[in-house]
């Protein structure tokens, strides 16, 4: 190889290395853009909504005067809707996940269910709203109630819980099952006493991620026709006379955090934008906390379990 060739090869190497560096920089910039977007989003809401973040804001009903308006009915509504969502979606999702992973025979029906779960995850959330409007509100006659909203969001997050359950069941080694069967356990005993308890942290992660998605969902709840001006609380789920629990609240009208925020966002007055910022801050804070908890759970899980 003569001198010129070596110089040319070195030139090629140099240019390739430059590309390397250039791309690493591009990747870094892309990431920074993401961080920047998030920081502006969060920072703007904090700056704009800071004045409104006081105890009164949490303890007041919405009002025509922005300075008096609060999110009492919104956060109570969100809490109750999430309760219905969790109670409906968690047992269903875990049961479906257990069936598909542990019981289902390899046949056409199982294939259909599996393809269906995958496809449901890709259905736009507003279509769930239409389903709920047609079926829950009118066909079943549940009305525009907490029950309807909770069930709708339950269906929406069902695929998330099913997938999380299946993944954590799959991570349990086969010898756990074989050991239990070897001692004479039935399939249900294996599932109840071993598989479900061992996969609980993984399932919890999925449940939390699903609920954090549900709590921020706006479109399906608007679609079922939830009112936006609610200046009352649903009947309390706990009463002081026997049987101490009542279900009147299930049929009550309601509003939730994201709808309250949407309502304020769509008003032109600056003062209502402040309320929207404060509500948005609380909403993002809640979803971040829930997601953070899920990430932490998964991290713990990866560290602590070795089969």
């Amino acid at each position, binding site marked *: 190889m003569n001198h010129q060739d070596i110089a040319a090869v070195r030139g090629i190497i140099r240019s390739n290395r430059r590309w390397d560096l250039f791309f690493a920089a591009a990747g870094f910039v892309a990431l920074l853009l993401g961080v920047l977007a998030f920081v502006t989003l969060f920072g703007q809401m904090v700056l704009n909504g800071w004045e409104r973040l006081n105890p009164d804001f949490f303890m007041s009903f919405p009002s025509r005067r922005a300075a008096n308006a609060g999110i009492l009915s919104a956060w109570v509504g969100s809490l109750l809707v999430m309760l219905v969502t969790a109670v409906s979606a968690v047992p269903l999702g875990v049961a479906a996940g257990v069936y598909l992973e542990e019981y289902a025979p390899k046949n056409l029906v199982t294939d259909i269910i599996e393809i269906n779960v995958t496809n449901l995850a890709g259905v736009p959330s507003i279509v769930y709203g239409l389903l709920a409007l047609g079926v829950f509100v009118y066909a079943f006659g549940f009305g525009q109630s907490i029950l309807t909203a909770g069930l709708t969001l339950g269906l929406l997050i069902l695929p998330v819980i099913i997938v999380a359950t299946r993944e954590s069941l799959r991570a349990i080694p086969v010898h756990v099952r074989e050991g239990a069967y070897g001692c004479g356990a039935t399939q249900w005993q294996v599932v109840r006493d071993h598989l479900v308890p061992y996969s609980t942290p993984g399932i919890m992660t999925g449940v939390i991620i699903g609920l954090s998605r549900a709590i921020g969902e706006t479109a399906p709840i608007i679609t079922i026709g939830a009112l936006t001006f609610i200046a009352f609380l649903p009947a309390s789920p706990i009463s002081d006379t026997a049987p101490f629990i009542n279900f009147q609240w299930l049929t009550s009208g309601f509003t939730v955090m994201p709808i309250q925020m949407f309502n304020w966002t769509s008003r032109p007055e600056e003062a209502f934008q402040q309320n929207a910022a404060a509500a948005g801050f609380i909403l993002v804070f809640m*979803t971040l906390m829930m997601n953070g908890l899920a990430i932490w759970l998964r991290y713990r899980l990866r560290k602590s379990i070795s089969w």
Partner: protein
Amino acid sequence: MSSTPATAVSDRLSRKLSRNVRERAIELVLFLAASVSVLTTLGIIWILLVESYHFFEHVPLWDFLTDTMWTPLFSEPRYGILPLLLGTVTTSLVALAVAVPLGTVIAIFISEFASPRVREVVKPFLELLGGVPTIVYGYFALTVVSPVLQYFFPSLPGFSMLAAGLVMGIAIVPYISSLSEDAMRAVPMSLREGAYAMGSTRFQTAVRVVLPAAISGVLSAYILGISRAVGETMIVAVAAGMQPNFTMNPAEPAQTISAYIVQVAMGDLPHGSIGYQSIFAAGLSLMVLTLFFNVVGHLIRRRYREAY
């Protein structure tokens, strides 16, 4: 065994029988739980088809597909889906123009360039970004991105598909980057080692070996991004304006299919009226659109799947 009383044997048998019955009953319950998801799909298809059928009794399908005006709430209503469809397509294109390059670059960076420690921090952060409610992104588009864009382009209106689309793109980046990254991680190490042994740089390995090997996964990530963009509702409802507009110019306000559903649902339309039925026809169009992309994604995955 001859010394065992006969009753004891039948007792054990009957216990075994009841145990079997219980096991099968539990299996049935679990199966019913799993079939709820199929019922959901059937419910969606049924309700969309039934209400749309009533809608198309009043509105000819041909008008629906070709009319360029969507004014269902006017005294002389026109029902052409095209303006809404163009709104959906335009905002989705703007979003993809942001999300596809950003998401791909981030995915390659995390998978091929970043150290494990950086990855440990960045992946959860992206997940957090993906968990932010879309109404918050809508607020962000309206109060931050629109004014910033107007500062650079003073002629831009306060509501525009550009602002909504840009923010929608940011909202989709986490989906695309995390799915693409999973696909690239799944490429076997031996391929990378081969490339490095031939003297490739990281960039060459990433773009000429890993990306082509993972292309089916990356493409399905894009397809998922598209169906997210098409179905996205709150960002466009807040920031893109609420008038149907027969245009593909992103600098103009417009309404998307999903935003129309929200607008009608916010009002108080009586059950069974044509306005009520029109949101189901709009929802059906949305479903057909996302179904189309899902099928395309499925075909792409089959066509380009590499097995190792």
